[in-house]
């Protein structure tokens, strides 16, 4: 009897204290902080925590866990966060295969998930969900932009990507807008580190350009070997392969390469200037696109929190969907499938005065681009 009394007293005091203060919000961040892909997750985490810190909002509590780029681990962490930590929102996953393992189950339990990077096509079309917001892009977008841009100069492209779903999405996206011929199309092994055999075929193919999607270390290896081989056919890629986290490792081999992205350090708007300055000051390095997307995700959440309570799911979803925040990418809105409508730019890798490699915007491939799957979404 005493125990019940004590419990109810405790419950009562908790209830009153939560009335007295602003409501605490718990955000679960699952991202990759160890293993080969950790650079991306660390940029994601650093930008996210910095955005929350700069906002001065003391009610946001972060639960950050490392998924080690393993889907099964990410699933376990997600369960723990939802059941144990009782998080209100989740975000953080970098890789599409991990997102596919975690997101459907998370949103089915009525937890809102905001993707700061991965945008698999399976979640954008018929299986879209009101609890799933993609703040980054749909996976095909960057490749579509490069396909569109390639039409300007090239008629005979050689394309390659790893043999897994995101690789096939990539080349599908490229071909959706590219009108020229293909000199060749190769699917490489996932995790492959030596591209001598593929480069020899590119040399022999008579292509006038090369488009590749090889995320992480694969792209670094390909670019170095391609430059060393002296083939010299112009290379294009999605922005991931020329992002700030990998450019130092590729070195001068990346100079002059055209790549597509929704964001660049030199994008001219107030929010972006503030972001780049703040990130550089805090972490003494240049932010990558993963950092930019994550910064936007945090600011979107903060903006929605100022309008609605996270406990009122309907109101909060509406507040998120309004996307009433200052994006570092400039104009930003959500489409019917909760995926972004945004510009996609073509960037060129350049060297700054201090010798650091970075990107500069040279063209706009698409204005207010929508993904190809939105019309299949019933929302």
């Amino acid at each position: 009897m005493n125990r019940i009394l004590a419990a109810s007293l405790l419950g009562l005091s908790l209830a009153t204290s939560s009335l007295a203060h602003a409501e605490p919000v718990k955000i679960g961040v699952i991202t990759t902080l160890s293993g080969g892909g950790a650079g991306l997750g660390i940029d994601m985490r650093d930008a996210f925590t910095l955005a929350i810190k700069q906002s001065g909002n003391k009610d946001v509590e972060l639960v950050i866990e490392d998924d080690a780029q393993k889907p099964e681990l990410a699933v376990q962490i997600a369960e723990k966060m939802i059941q144990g930590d009782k998080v209100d929102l989740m975000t953080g996953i970098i890789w599409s295969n991990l997102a596919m393992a975690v997101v459907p189950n998370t949103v089915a339990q009525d937890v809102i998930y905001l993707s700061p990077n991965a945008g698999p096509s399976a979640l954008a079309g018929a299986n879209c969900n009101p609890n799933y917001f993609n703040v980054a892009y749909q996976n095909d977008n960057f490749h579509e932009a490069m396909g569109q841009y390639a039409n300007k100069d090239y008629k005979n492209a050689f394309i390659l990507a790893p043999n897994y779903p995101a690789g096939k999405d990539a080349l599908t996206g490229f071909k959706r807008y590219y009108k020229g011929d293909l000199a060749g199309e190769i699917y490489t092994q996932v995790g492959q580190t030596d591209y001598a055999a593929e480069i020899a075929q590119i040399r022999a193919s008579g292509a006038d350009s090369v488009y590749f999607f090889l995320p992480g270390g694969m792209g670094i290896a390909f670019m170095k070997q391609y430059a060393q081989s002296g083939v010299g056919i112009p290379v294009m890629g999605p922005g991931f392969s020329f992002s700030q986290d990998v450019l130092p490792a590729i070195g001068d081999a990346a100079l002059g390469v055209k790549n597509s992205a929704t964001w660049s350090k030199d994008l001219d708007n107030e929010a972006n200037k503030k972001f780049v300055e703040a990130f550089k000051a805090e972490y003494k390095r240049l932010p990558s696109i993963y950092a930019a997307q994550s910064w936007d995700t945090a600011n979107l959440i903060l903006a929605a929190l100022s309008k609605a309570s996270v406990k009122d799911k309907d109101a909060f979803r509406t507040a998120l969907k309004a996307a009433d925040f200052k994006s570092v990418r400039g104009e930003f809105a959500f489409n019917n499938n909760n995926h972004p409508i945004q510009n996609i730019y073509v960037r060129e890798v350049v060297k700054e005065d201090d010798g650091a490699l970075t990107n500069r915007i040279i063209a706009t491939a698409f204005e207010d681009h929508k993904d190809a799957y939105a019309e299949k979404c019933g929302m």
Partner: protein
Amino acid sequence: MFTALLIEQLLNGLQLGVMLFLMAAGLTLIFGVMGLINLAHGSLYMIGAFACATVAAATGSFWIGLIASLAAAAGVGAIIEVAVIRRLYDRDHLDQVLATFALILILSEGARWLFGSFPLYLDIPPLLQGAVPLPGGGQYQLYRLAIIGVGIAVAVGLYLLISGTRLGMRIRAGESDREMIGALGVDIGTLYTVVFALGAALAGLAGALVGALQSVQVGMGEPVLILAFVVIVIGGIGSIKGALVGAVIVGVVDTMGRFLLPSMLALAMPASQATTIGAALASMLIYVVMALILAFRPSGLFSAQS
């Protein structure tokens, strides 16, 4: 033009094989002499690459980096042997696998702690940049030719070491009867440390050479480790000769499969299907070859035990 491409691809296969040989030689040597399955061999490869990249960035010389990679990998190898591995020789393989897997995690996170999570930069030295002409109108990258040269030199060096020196004699004796050479007064502890450090140095050398071609990052050793195990299983566990032959088979089969399978399938089916199916088949090919070889030679091509 096709002949030139074919020659180029054969050389690519040979170069991949030689690189695998550097890994597999150390692995098979350690297994042959000490009976130890060392999963942490890939971490020693990573240490070689990190040491080379760091020292090359600090001094501006790839060659000093290369020496540093040998020293670092051999040094770490010796420390690991004395501190951890020595306690595992009498245990069964499961304990060894568990302990050396723990070493992978410790060394990977240690490397991240020291060097950060972002890949490092390492380029091929100016002396070896450029290409040499091939018969048939093609050309081949000088640096890759140099890797083939280093691999052949290491193979010859290992042969001379094992067949012609006192250390080699002890290694051979250790392979055939561990207790007996201990009883004959050979300091078996030192011999084990030396062999382990030698295997580690070879892995470090491979890491440094390959680091200039690809991305120097945490976890770079594990994919190579899997291929190195395929090599020593094909070649026969414990046999250096087997490691060499196995490595060249794996290198050439893998490269030619990736190159020829999609184009051969394209003769029989639509191009888009051929590329996907060809890529899938090519990634299985070395395992198919391994299965075939094991079906006819269950203990590998040149088993040291038989």
